[in-house]
């Protein structure tokens, strides 16, 4: 265990977070039996895992990608095509999709990593859109139905389950793995390198950081897990089509959740997903029937308020609140000192 603390910055509070996360991912599916809530739980876990994956590239390394739908859709399509046409188990399809996504990631990295900030975001956005359009266009040449359905035949090797709670365990496990990877990266030298690249590329390179290699590592890991999320969602919904799995919504939701929770932190994207998804569902329920679209207006306004009040996300907000409380105590002491002297 000693080498662990040599290579990873392990803090005391980590134990609390670990217990909370384990209780959430392994405990909640046991206690919730209502199908509606289980559905919310599955989606929260899935989005939290993918937002964490996005955050490795977008938050820790500061490369704000708006094209992650490309990896999500690639994962969903690869595993579904392999399963439907060749009978390959989605577990293997998940790995295959991840590899194809990493291949796409290498292609987009070559031009995109030459750009910074907004330009990087625009390039990745265009890439995500281009993949969907290419896929729709390719149907002119390849005989493939617009949407692909997966037959409902429950079985572990087919990654199709009878019980919704099994999906909650599956997505919970996915979230655990991504979080473990993100945590390991964040607390090792790689995390420090990624933050250095985010803060100042010039200074990082001058300090001996091979910038392109580490940006690439972040991108590949991020692409792989986002793609895995795509496979899992396809196995949950059992139907995919280009406009649904290559939807720009994924490209936007993942960064959004990271921003709400706290971009660049390990817990941030999870918190963001836990808050944003149920919020949207509740609003839909409240306003969906009466005034169509109203829930999105309110959702948007709430997000704006959160981002304005808490520019560093909920995690940043809590941290600065704690700091203010501490400072309040010390300045409080100072005023009593002054009074004492008077």
């Amino acid at each position, binding site marked *: 265990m000693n080498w662990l*603390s*040599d*290579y*990873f*910055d392990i803090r005391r509070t980590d134990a609390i977070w670990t217990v909370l996360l384990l209780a959430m991912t392994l405990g909640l599916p046991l206690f919730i039996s209502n199908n509606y809530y289980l559905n919310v739980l599955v989606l929260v876990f899935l989005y939290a895992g993918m937002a964490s994956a996005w955050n490795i590239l977008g938050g820790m390394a500061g490369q704000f990608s708006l094209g992650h739908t490309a990896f999500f859709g690639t994962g969903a399509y690869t595993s579904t095509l392999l399963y439907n046409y060749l009978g390959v188990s989605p577990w293997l399809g998940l790995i295959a999709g991840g590899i194809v996504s990493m291949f796409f990631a290498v292609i987009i990295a070559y031009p995109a990593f030459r750009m910074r900030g907004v330009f990087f975001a625009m390039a990745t956005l265009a890439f995500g859109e281009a993949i969907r359009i290419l896929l729709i266009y390719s149907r002119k040449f390849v005989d493939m139905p617009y949407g692909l359905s997966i037959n409902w035949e429950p079985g572990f090797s087919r990654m199709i389950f009878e019980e919704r709670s099994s999906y909650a365990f599956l997505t919970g496990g996915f979230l655990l793995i991504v979080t473990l990877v993100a945590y390991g990266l964040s607390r*090792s*030298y790689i995390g*420090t*390198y990624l*933050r*250095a690249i*985010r*803060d*100042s590329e*010039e*200074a*990082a*390179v*001058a*300090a*001996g*950081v*091979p*910038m392109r290699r580490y940006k690439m590592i972040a991108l590949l890991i991020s692409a792989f897990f986002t793609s895995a999320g795509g496979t899992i969602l396809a196995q949950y919904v059992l139907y995919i089509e280009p406009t649904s799995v290559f939807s720009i919504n994924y490209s936007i939701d993942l960064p959004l959740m990271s921003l709400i929770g706290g971009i*660049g932190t390990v817990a941030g994207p999870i918190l963001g997903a836990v808050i944003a998804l149920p919020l949207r569902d509740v609003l839909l329920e409240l306003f969906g029937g009466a005034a169509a679209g109203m829930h999105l207006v309110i959702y948007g306004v709430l997000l704006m308020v959160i981002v304005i009040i808490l520019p560093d996300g909920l995690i940043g907000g809590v941290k600065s609140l704690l700091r203010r409380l501490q400072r309040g105590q010390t300045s409080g002491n100072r005023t009593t000192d002054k009074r004492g002297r008077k």
Partner: protein
Amino acid sequence: MLQIDNVTKRFGGLVAVDAVSLTVNEGEIIGLIGPNGAGKTTLYNVIAGTFPATQGSIHFRGQRIDGKRADETCMLGLARTFQIPQVFGSMTVGDSIMVGAFLRSRSRRVARRRAEEVAEAVGLGHRFDLPTTSLTTAERKRLEVARTLATDPGMILLDEVMAGLNHTEVQLMLDLVSSLRDGGLTVLFVEHNLSAVMQICDRIAVLDHGAKIADGLPTEVMENREVITAYLGAPAEDGENQAGGDHA
């Protein structure tokens, strides 16, 4: 230690550095001076790997380094600072220094110990756990030096580390650089502050319009007619009284 042979750097039609050769021996402190626009920073950037040279070659410890990326030259033991301090805004002082230290060891424990030593050496020991954004300009310059030192270099390139410092701070920085040399480090200075350069350098090279016009002991260089002309313009008795600059 560092061998610059006939290095030329052109930006389109502009020759920023014109066939400059310079040798830096191990353990020396060399000052690179010259009026504004003389090509000092360009030459510096070529050595550090920011730009490739148009012509010529640069060898460090016998290995050719021109065309190599800055992180590669850093790995070989040639590290640079920036004129405008580039701090890692989201980090503490300690973490920023550790970025450099991770080059030689991936272990956090080893890197942290190294960072603490370096912070102590540059006088930032008491700031170790503070955010970098809370540092003053002088402290940021020290952090620049600390980050490069943490990479365990054999030679460091300092780009105007004295700029913007007051008299006391300059003196402290000079003490720091001398102590580094005593520790066996080779130093190449690009500097505007001539009195600082005079005090500390073993040798001074002067650039003007991209070409090297002098190279020698500080006292020799300061008496060199060409150098005086480059900085102050031609003497009055030569007929033309041009005020070339106000750097001296």
